[in-house]
């Protein structure tokens, strides 16, 4: 999962020293020096599933889009439709596609005001995303402001909200208690979003860089444990959430990436980038689909292993061991007609696996 970009010196988030204090094992991730774990990845995983953990996700890219035509612009830029967002703060997950219908990136957009949307994109795709967005924003007179002044901590797990609330002012706590799932709220210099990448309840909190270390310490004091990128990957895999660059990229359509639900076909006169290509693909019927696999034999599923079905071959896009299920699980792209059973080739052996919907764990429990 770690991808080193070129040989440039990796960047550090404002929490870098906090990671060292917590014995974080630092690795290069998309040009950032980030903690892969602070000891045991499995323990960190379980901490999030059963209590509360926090991730430094300050490397992610926050973009503020402003202008009267921002809504019209995003309705053209994204496959999902921001017109669905009627209430202030509501969030939407979407793919940003190229003209061939391939996924340039997946992102979350928050509706803050009619002329103000906040978008969070992946760190590894920052340059190309900025280029693509700017290129299309011109005609809509939308201004794009990168919020590199903000850090971000994701606090996730069944007890995470309670622990965050424990050190906040009563007034802030009250506001957050009323915050619904998949909504964001700006409170003073902070932005709290009830979103995440683990399948657990919690917040993604944007915090001014100069205040983030203090905030991290408060979280530590209230019993929230630091969690590394390793556990972030197994948590999102159990939750069946795609990792950009691994489970999908520009050569893959959302229809073949279990992202069909993020394409807003209605209203049918909305023109968005990639629509024509997707319509053709939909008409023909997509050839591949992204599914979940559970290994029935012993071993561990990994990315790029070959999947053999009655309808042809496919490939695992991401795989690991699921600490919650105690079995190996994976996401795999396989022929659309395949179902129920398949085999995975691991070191020359064909091991039996079950084909399931790409979601394994929600709110601490197996959904298999």
């Amino acid at each position: 999962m770690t991808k080193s970009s070129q040989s440039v010196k990796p960047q550090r988030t404002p929490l870098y020293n906090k990671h060292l204090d917590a014995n974080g094992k630092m690795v290069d991730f998309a040009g950032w020096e980030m903690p892969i774990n602070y000891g045991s990845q499995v323990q960190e995983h379980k901490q999030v599933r059963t209590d509360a953990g926090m991730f430094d996700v300050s490397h992610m890219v926050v973009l503020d889009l402003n202008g009267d035509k921002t809504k019209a612009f995003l309705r053209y830029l994204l496959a999902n439709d921001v017109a669905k967002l009627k209430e202030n703060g509501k969030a939407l997950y979407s793919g940003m596609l190229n003209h061939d219908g391939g996924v340039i990136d997946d992102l979350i957009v928050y509706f803050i005001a009619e002329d103000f949307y906040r978008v969070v994109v992946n760190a590894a795709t920052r340059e190309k995303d900025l280029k693509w967005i700017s290129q299309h924003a011109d005609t809509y007179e939308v201004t794009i402001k990168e919020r590199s002044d903000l850090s971000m901590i994701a606090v996730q797990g069944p007890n995470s909200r309670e622990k965050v609330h424990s050190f906040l002012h009563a007034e802030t706590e009250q506001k957050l208690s009323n915050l619904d799932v998949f909504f964001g709220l700006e409170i003073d210099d902070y932005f709290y979003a009830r979103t995440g990448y683990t399948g657990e309840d919690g917040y993604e909190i944007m915090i001014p860089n100069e205040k983030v270390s203090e905030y991290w310490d408060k979280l530590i004091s209230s019993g929230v444990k630091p969690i590394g990128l390793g556990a972030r990957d197994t948590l999102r895999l159990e939750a069946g959430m795609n990792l950009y660059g691994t489970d999908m990229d520009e050569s893959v359509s959302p229809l073949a990436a279990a992202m069909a639900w993020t394409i807003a076909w209605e209203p049918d006169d909305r023109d968005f980038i990639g629509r024509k290509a997707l319509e053709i693909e939909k008409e023909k019927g997509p050839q591949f689909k992204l599914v979940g696999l559970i290994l029935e034999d012993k071993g561990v599923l990994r990315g790029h292993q070959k999947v053999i079905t009655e309808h042809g071959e496919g490939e695992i896009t991401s795989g690991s061991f699921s600490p919650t299920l105690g079995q190996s699980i994976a996401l795999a792209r396989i022929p659309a007609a395949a179902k129920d059973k398949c085999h995975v080739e691991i070191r020359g052996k064909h091991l039996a696996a079950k084909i399931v919907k790409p979601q394994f764990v929600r709110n601490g429990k197996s959904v298999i």
Partner: protein
Amino acid sequence: MSNENPNDLKYTKTHEWVRDNGDSTVTVGITEHAQELLGDVVYVELPEVEASLSAEENCGVIESVKAASDMYAPLDGEVTEVNEELDSEPELINTAPFGEGWIFTMKLTSEDALTELMDADEYEAFCQE
């Protein structure tokens, strides 16, 4: 860094440890340093009992949450026993790499070959390189 590697063991460059059982058999496992690098072990593909191995031959796989890592035979010989406990408790490799986390035993073709391996100090120096 203090030397955490027991003095009575021999070591390979691929981070296996070898205990001389004094009856021309040896017990093999992976070192503390190796388990630390691997992280949480979740599955071990053990060699087959009676398999005939050559030194440095790939003889199994240790899978951690992070990645799969090959295991190598330290010397020429034949596998006499494997640690079946690892099937249900692969984490023993993390918690007791030099003890209950042993992986297999083998009968050596030549006991003299043991001298070709590193001792604890040499291995420690090797890890620091």
